[in-house]
Every structure is written in C-alpha cells, then in structure tokens.
C-alpha cells in the first residue's frame, strides 16, 4: 500500500437546481451532496453509510462521473478527474468499475450475459471477439459461474448470480477501484454472505480498492475497513469501522446504530428512536443539520435541563414555529402541546418553565406567532446557530459541537 490515496474527494458538491416558470428561473437548490471529503486508500474498503435520501448514491455517481459535480474536486491516482475529458476521462472510466443495487436494471434482458459482461471491452475498443470471449469466460469462472452461462439470458439467473455477473462486468476492464452501490441489499441474507465472500476474494486477487455504499450496518461491519457516515448531504463522522461502531462520536451515528434491533429477544425495548423526520435537502436546517432531531442537542448555558427535557422542549418549540409559519393551530387532537411532545409539567428549571408557560398562554390566546417568538428567543442552541467545525476525535474527523469547546 503506497502512501497516496487512490481516490481523493474534496468538498464534493452535487446540487440540483429547482426551477420555475418559462425561463426556468432558479428558485432554489436541492443540496443532495453538499461538501463531502474523504480519501479511499489503496486496497481498502471504505463504506459510505447513511439512510435513503442522504446523498450517498448521488455522491458515488458524481465521483465516478455519471453526474457532473457542481463543486469540489475528485483526484484519481494523483490526477484531477473532476471535469476531465478525452484520454484522462476514458482512462479514469476504465480504471473504476461500478456495481449497482438492482441487477435487473443494469442488464439488457435481450442480451446474453456473456456479451453484457464483455460490453465494456467493446466500448473501450476491443474488436477481437475470441479474445473477448476468453476474457469473459475466465471472469465468469472467477465469480463462481461457468463458461456454459455465457450464452444465457439474465432472467435465467437468480438475484445472487446476477450480482456475480455485475461484478464480472465491473472487473472486465481490470479496474483498480470498484464503486459498489448497495450491491447486496436486494438479496437474502445467505446470498449476501456469498456475494460478500466473493467480493473479498476478488478484492485480494485484483488488488482492488472498494467504495461500498450501504445503508446496512451489519453488512458494513462485516465487510468494510473504514466508514464515512452521511446525513443530509454531509459527512458527520469517519474512521475505522471498529472505532466508529464501538464508540460512535457523532450523535447521528449513535442513533443509526442504536436503531438497529439487537439479535437477542432479551434486549428488546432498547431501541434508540429519533423524533421528527429527515430534513429537506432543498432547505436544510441551519447549523448542524441533525440538530432538529439530535438526542444530544446542546442546551443554552442559562438553563439547567436534563437531556430528554431539553430535546422535548425544542421539539415543542419547532412545532409551534412550524404552525406559526403555516398559520395553523399547533395543538393536535385532544392532547395538549406538552403531552404531544412529552414535555414534563413543570420543567425541572423554573426559569425555563416560566417562559414556556407564557408561550403556551400565547398559543391558547391564538397568538401563536408571539408564542413562537418567545420560545425561539429563550430556547436557543449552538447546534442551530453555528455550523460545527470538523474536529479530530481520536484521529477521526467528527462534525459535532459536543466535541468542540461549545459542548461539554
């Protein structure tokens, strides 16, 4: 393993404009990938993990050039390939193979699979049919299929076999990097294990570096060396899988891991559940993007409130603000606002309780906006006000105020 990373991504951005009207005036941007940086070292497997909509697939597609980045740079083996064309781009495409989640959409149902696996060879200029067939046949055998499969059609293969074929095609140009986007997510667990074993074998044989996009914590734990955790277009934490999964430093990573049920019926009822939903990438939350849901969101120094109370109080504050914006009554059904958000009565800090009571009276009186303002002025958090800087926690970069001098 030489020192320089094979792939180096800096401040990668992929924004989609939201346009309106005849002249397609840009009225906003969906910040699908919003400043992502990481290195893929030679020979390693790096996981990009996150939930649907966090931008991990867009990041992968953008860095291999399937989408144009709107910002940032991608360096491959030392060369800037961000906006490369001509020879550099062709060379980059040859040296990076890609595998997708759904093999059915990556294989033409009317093309024999052997031809499909060999297609990249033809695209890159191979004219010798016999040599192509020989290369493909050898690869089919390497991925656990056989030469007799060459002339068969995709529908004759199981899901696991199709992913083997997808791997064969990704490897046909002898790449150095494979970007695999949820390659085993559509498969049964036992087939997943088989395909991952195969990927591990191929990685060793071809000396591959793998960028592994996944939402599945179990798969990442068993297959990857390092992990980068993504939330709403940004990376929140990255580091070795053992460290990040054993001692997650970012509250989102902790929530992600804690929301996976234990494989032991004796441990039920201990799931970490987040409040609210993932924010809108077209209008991401200010400060730390996770602050509207973060169980560890930092309270202002003026108040002395336990963590759960502070979280519930902020939920109430945001709900009143949303209702004020939409000109609605924030109260729901027959439950009081306190009940709906699990805010205890009274709060353990009397000063906070006084503010809350005044605000709730405002809402009762129909002055939702005044109540919302009162809450917003009193119940502030650094997590909302300031974007957290990247801090090194035990040699892994984490973006959370809990780890800078603003937190504890």
């Amino acid at each position: 393993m030489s020192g320089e990373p094979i792939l180096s991504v800096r401040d990668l951005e992929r924004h989609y404009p939201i346009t309106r009207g005849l002249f397609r005036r840009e009225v906003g941007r969906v910040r699908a990938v919003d400043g992502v940086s990481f290195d893929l070292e030679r020979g390693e497997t790096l996981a990009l993990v996150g939930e649907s909509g966090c931008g991990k697939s867009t990041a992968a597609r953008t860095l291999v050039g399937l989408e144009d980045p709107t910002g940032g740079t991608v360096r491959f083996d030392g060369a800037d390939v961000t906006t490369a064309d001509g020879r550099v781009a062709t060379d980059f495409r040859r040296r990076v193979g890609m595998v997708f989640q759904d093999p059915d959409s990556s294989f033409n149902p009317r093309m024999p699979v052997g031809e499909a696996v060999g297609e990249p060879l033809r695209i890159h200029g191979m004219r010798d049919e016999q040599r192509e067939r020989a290369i493909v046949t050898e690869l089919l055998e390497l991925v656990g299929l056989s030469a007799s499969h060459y002339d068969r059609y995709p529908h004759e293969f199981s899901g696991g076999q199709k992913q083997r074929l997808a791997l064969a095609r990704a490897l046909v140009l002898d790449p150095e990097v494979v970007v695999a986007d949820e390659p085993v997510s559509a498969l049964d667990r036992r087939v997943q294990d088989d395909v991952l074993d195969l990927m591990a074998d191929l990685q060793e044989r071809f000396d591959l570096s793998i960028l592994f996009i996944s939402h599945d914590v179990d798969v990442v734990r068993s297959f990857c060396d390092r992990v980068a955790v993504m939330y709403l277009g940004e990376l929140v934490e990255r580091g070795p899988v053992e460290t990040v999964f054993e001692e997650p430093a970012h509250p989102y990573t902790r929530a992600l891991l804690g929301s996976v049920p234990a494989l032991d019926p004796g441990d039920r009822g201990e799931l970490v559940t987040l409040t609210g939903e993932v924010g809108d990438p077209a209008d991401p939350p200010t400060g730390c993007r996770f602050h509207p849901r973060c169980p560890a969101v930092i309270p202002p120094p003026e108040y002395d409130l336990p963590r759960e109370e502070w979280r519930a109080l902020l939920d109430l504050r945001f709900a009143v603000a949303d209702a004020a914006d939409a000109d609605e009554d924030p109260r729901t059904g027959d439950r009081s606002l306190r009940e709906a958000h699990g805010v205890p009565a009274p709060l353990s800090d009397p000063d906070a309780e006084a503010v809350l009571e005044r605000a709730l009276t405002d809402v009762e009186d129909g002055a939702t906006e005044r109540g919302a303002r009162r809450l917003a002025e009193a119940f502030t958090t650094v997590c909302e006000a300031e974007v957290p800087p990247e801090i090194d926690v035990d040699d892994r970069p984490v973006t959370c105020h809990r780890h800078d001098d603003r937190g504890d």
Partner: protein
Amino acid sequence: MTEPLLSVSNLRTQFRTDRETVRAVDGVDFDVFRGETLAIVGESGSGKTVACESITRLLEEPPAELVDGEVVFDGVDLTTLPEATLREIRGNRIAHVFQNPQRSLSPVYTVGEQLVEAMAIHDVASGTAARERAVGLLDRVGIPRPSVRVDEYPHQFSGGMRQRVAIAIALAAEPDLLVADEPTTALDVTVQAQLLDLLTDLQETLELAVILVTHDFRVVAELADRVVVMYDGKVMERGSVGDVFDGPAHPYTQALFGGEDVADRRVDDADDTAPTVGCRFHRECPHAIPDCRRGDQPPLRPTGTGQRAACVYYDESHDSSVVRARRLEREVTSDER
C-alpha cells in the same frame, strides 16, 4: 390453555401455470393466540407471504388455489366461507399491513377520507364522529399535526409516515388480528425503530394478535413471542422466540443465523429448485444423511429444548446431538469473534 384466535392446519396453496404447478405453501400449521405476536420467518420464496394471504384469501384465484387445509378463525373455518362473508372479516376483524403501504392506500383520496370510509364500511363510526376518530387514529400512530394532515393525500407523506397511515387504516375497524407483512422492510433503520416502537405499543394497549411476516431476525427478536421458520413451503421449526434464539434446532434455522459451513453448499441457482422428496433443505444441509432424502418433510418433532423442528435428527432413531453439537460450536466461535 385458551383456544387460539386463529388456527391454521395443513394449509396448502399452489400456483398453477400452463407449464407447472408450484406448491408455494405445502402443509403448514400454526396457531395465533389473542394478544401475541407470531413471526413467520423465511427467505424470499419460502411461502411466508402466500401463507398469510391465504388466511383471508387475498390471493388472486386462479392462478392461486387453496388446495387443502383449515383456517379456523374464532371458531369459524374461513376456507369454507363465501367471498361476501369473507370480505366482512377481512379488514373488519383481520387487517393487513403490507411492505408497500401504497397497497392499502388510494392515491386519489385524502387519508381522512380513507379512514372514514374504512370506519363506515365496518360500521365503526360515521359523520363527524368518524372524522374525529380519524384524527385520533393518526395521532395514535404518531402522525404530527393530525388535524391538519388528515386532509392531505398519501403522496404528501414520507415512506415511514405513509406506513403509519396504513397502520391507522388497518386499525380503523378495530380488528382482532393484524397481519403485518414485512411492514418495516422498505424503511430506513431509524424509521423502522420508530415503527417497531409503535407496533409494540399498539399491541400492548389494544391487545392485538399480530402475525408478523419478515426475513429479519432482528425484527423478530424485537417484536415476536413465537416464531415459525418456513422454507420452500414447509415449516422447518416452530417455538417460542426465546427457545429458537437460544438454540436454533433445525439446520436451516442455524443457517439463517449465519452458519458459514452451510453457505458453501448453497444452491444459488434460479433453475435449480429445492427437492420435493425428503427434507426440502437436504441439499444445502451440512448434516444431510441418506434418511434426509427419503419420504416427505419430517414432521415437527419436539427437540427437547422447547421448540419443534422438522428434521430427522430429532426422531428416536437418530442422534440429535449431531445437529446440536455443531450449533454450540458455532456459538462459541461467534462469541470469540
């Protein structure tokens, strides 16, 4: 012991096409008691979904065909009922939630209209009372600002919220049994955690009986009281969640829990279907002996550790420690890891 709410015995459902007949469910037995969660676990193609959809005959017939078996729900055999009577039970007393919530939602009506309709069909409530109840149900399943969102359409909800709405609709008629088929599989883990919490809570407060169909043992560990493990239309193992997790008895269940030695022998080939003679799992089983290739699937026998398993090793003439010993070995290695 009290009577089960639902008792399925010798259920056989097949699909007939021009070329072949597929026995999707091939003689399956299980009971569901009031207030419990029974998990039916299996991989794709195991017949778990077909088994559940056979209960209220949700399957399209033909190609599906209920060939044999009894489905006794609260004393009545559903297999003999005419469609009209069955329709009353479906939704009213047995409600379904699917992996894809769209299957229970209409895109052209607001969620409130759909909730009110569900209540009207099943004579629960109507008019203003129904609307109020609809808001209450949305609140109950954790939809924020339900009095506003009741007038929105399904597409205005996120995937997780849509599944909550589907659950609200399923609960609208106050059913006795909820059949939840992979209800969280399409959702992100953080959303799944919220839904699992909700299901636990609903079941406790409403004393619902739940059939949970899933491929995910983690979800089983979180929710289920008892487990049925299915493979290729057959029940391989059945028992309490504690017994099955403490020591999976059938080699197939062990394989699902992650046995490396089994994976090597896996037949992962679309045109190579499981055998119809002997144990369905024998070709992949690391313990297979000639007896496993004879006759039909062995019956579910007591394993001595609480659950039952359909494996020849648990009859009198075989030594079940062969299967068990391997299991313990693996537990030790997985602990060391």
